[in-house]
């Protein structure tokens, strides 16, 4: 319906009245339809869906009042103005009409200017009504969208938070969100050396923004723990990521714990969370770690202190962590739960019941819904030395990173077209402690092996083209063309750090789906030749290099031990030339 496009139904048993009212309606540019009885009015209401009705009260049959009542009922929530026309200006009749569902009334004889004015009024209201219902639709759509996004976000968070590290039998936890998302985050994982790492983070605010602020920390925590880093390095990296990624003023309180059951030590870094406490078997609190640092993301890397506090424990004990939502949970009188109450609940309970006892005490105290996110974590700390069978237990701190590492990559034709494989891998190598000193050498090895696999294994190019500058350009053009046309094939790269003959080595394996090539010929190429130099170079750089099968797979061992990165250890080969 547009401004001049209302359909007006005029209901009257007197033909003359209908004709006069119809004239007004049509003059105003609206569509006019008529009904001569209450029954017909009902029919027209259903068949014509009028935008406004002028209804005479006194009619034979069901009459105007009853017709109004039924139309109003049938119209439901749809807004349909009904204007009653009464013969007399009697108060009770007017009231009865309005009660039957009319919106306004006119008296007979009909004043045409008043009728005209009322049509305009109802048109204005109709337009308002329409705008309102449009907004309401938009709002509903927006709400549905927001709900959808929230569900997606929640399942994503759920996926990220619920990793297997949290199903560790030594761990119990509960996170009670104040809102759909919790800004509190609990994560746990074990290093290859069996140090148990636990993270409790309390992002500023609640809901999605707080949860989002925690996500970058979270991935860092899992990735670095998996590689065997100590918590000092982890918290340092987390802080620097937080500091660069999040807008100023956004930060998270964080507690990071490392339990080393081999050495019998617990390391804690606490920035802004309530003090975790350690209970011995008898229920005495033997240690608290008060916050000694600023929350994560506040300080720039150069001012940040990643130093954890180390505690050596004797027998099996239990460690409890909680966010400030627990300390500050209020009861009906506004009294906070407080750390003292929490500790008292823990001390009073039997060893096995401590976690439940703390939650029960909290729930009993709390008035109802959580005003803040509340997280509680309990960690079983085994007696020192219980895990001595573990061979790769790093020393307390574990700063040197892992001795073992294995990464595999599979690149399909599509990836090879669009991705500069070697620089991409190099960016990663630079971040791995065991490899970063050797990044330049590993880059060459990877470059040569991948170039061979791609250029010759998959693209079947002839490297003897590269004997002149023009040839170089021709080769580049051919390579580009062949690469664009490539539809099938793959290259697999495996990069491992391992010990071999007591020495730390990188093993680099590159395999392609091509038929292989005559690698024996490569060793015959002179130093100043313009092609075939790559493989000879890799051979000299590496500790060992060999082809497997038809030559579509090559394995290189590169020594990572100290000093190996310098020219020294490979120099004898060079002298032999």
């Amino acid at each position, binding site marked *: 319906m547009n401004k001049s496009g209302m359909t007006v139904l005029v209901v009257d048993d007197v033909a003359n009245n209908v004709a006069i009212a119809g004239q007004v309606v049509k003059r105003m540019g609206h569509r006019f339809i008529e009904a001569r009885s209450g029954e017909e009015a009902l029919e027209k209401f259903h068949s014509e869906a009028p935008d406004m009705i002028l209804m005479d009260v006194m009619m034979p049959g069901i009459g105007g009042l009853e017709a109004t009542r039924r139309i109003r009922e049938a119209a439901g929530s749809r807004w349909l103005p009904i204007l009653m026309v009464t013969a007399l200006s009697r108060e009770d009749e007017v009231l009865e009409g309005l009660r039957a569902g009319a919106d306004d009334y006119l008296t007979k004889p009909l004043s045409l200017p008043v009728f005209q004015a009322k049509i305009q009024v109802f048109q204005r209201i109709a337009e308002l009504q329409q705008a309102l219902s449009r907004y309401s639709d938009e709002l509903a759509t927006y709400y549905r969208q927001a709900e959808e996004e929230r569900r997606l976000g929640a399942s994503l968070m759920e996926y990220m938070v619920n990793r297997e590290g949290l199903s560790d039998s030594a761990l119990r936890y509960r996170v009670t969100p104040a809102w759909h998302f919790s800004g509190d985050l609990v994560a746990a994982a074990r290093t290859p050396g069996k140090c148990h790492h636990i993270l409790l983070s309390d992002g500023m605010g609640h809901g999605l923004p707080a949860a989002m602020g925690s996500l970058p920390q979270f991935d860092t925590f899992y990735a670095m723990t998996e590689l065997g880093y100590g918590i000092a390095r982890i918290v340092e990296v987390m802080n620097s990521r937080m500091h660069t990624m999040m807008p100023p003023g956004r930060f998270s309180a964080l507690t990071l714990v490392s339990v080393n059951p081999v050495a019998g030590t617990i390391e804690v870094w606490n920035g802004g969370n309530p003090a975790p406490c350690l209970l011995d078997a008898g229920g005495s609190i033997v240690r608290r770690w008060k916050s000694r640092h600023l929350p994560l993301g506040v300080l720039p890397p150069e001012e940040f202190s990643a130093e954890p506090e180390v505690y050596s424990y004797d027998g099996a004990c239990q460690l409890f962590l909680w966010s400030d939502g627990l300390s500050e949970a209020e009861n009906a009188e506004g009294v906070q739960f407080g750390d003292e109450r929490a500790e008292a609940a823990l001390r009073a309970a039997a060893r096995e019941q401590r976690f439940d006892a703390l939650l029960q005490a909290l729930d009993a105290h709390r008035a109802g819904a959580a005003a803040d996110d509340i997280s509680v974590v309990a960690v079983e700390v085994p007696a020192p030395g219980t895990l001595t069978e573990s061979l790769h237990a790093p020393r307390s701190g574990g700063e040197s990173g892992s001795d073992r590492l294995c990464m595999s990559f599979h690149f399909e034709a599509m990836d090879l077209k669009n991705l500069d494989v070697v620089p991409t891998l190099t960016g990663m190598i630079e971040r791995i402690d065991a490899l970063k000193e050797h990044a330049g050498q590993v880059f060459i090895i990877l470059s040569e092996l991948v170039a061979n696999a791609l250029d010759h294994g998959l693209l079947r190019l002839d490297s003897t083209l590269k004997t002149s500058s023009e040839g170089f350009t021709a080769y580049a053009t051919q390579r580009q063309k062949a690469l664009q046309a490539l539809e099938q094939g793959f290259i697999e790269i495996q990069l491992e750090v391992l010990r071999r003959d007591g020495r730390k080595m990188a093993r680099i394996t590159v395999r392609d789906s091509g038929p292989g090539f005559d690698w024996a010929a490569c060793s015959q190429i002179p130093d100043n030749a313009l092609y075939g*130099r790559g493989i000879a170079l890799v051979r000299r*750089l590496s500790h060992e290099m060999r082809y497997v099968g038809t030559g579509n797979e090559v394995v290189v061992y590169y020594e990572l031990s100290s000093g190996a990165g310098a020219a020294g250890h490979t120099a004898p080969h060079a002298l032999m030339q």
Partner: protein
Amino acid sequence: MNIDTRKDGNTARIVLNGRFDFNSHRLFNDATSALLSEPGVSELEVDFDEVKYIDSSAMGMLLLLKERAKSAAKSITLLNCKGAVAQVFELSNFRRLFNIK
């Protein structure tokens, strides 16, 4: 990779910055060709101070440059080679082929 060229009298310095590999071919060729065709320039220095990564096609380009310089009667010197770059030149016997400082 970025290439910056500076001239000082009859010496031209080609300063490389970044990753010197197959993809640098055109850039390197353009920069060196321009200098090789300049009569006033008799010495070319290639500065590796800002090069961390190099591959064998880069070495191919250096060998090509050496040949072209020879026919243009100009000399080539490789400067500031260190880390993996120095090691690679060492292993490839580039010392026998180039003047390395």
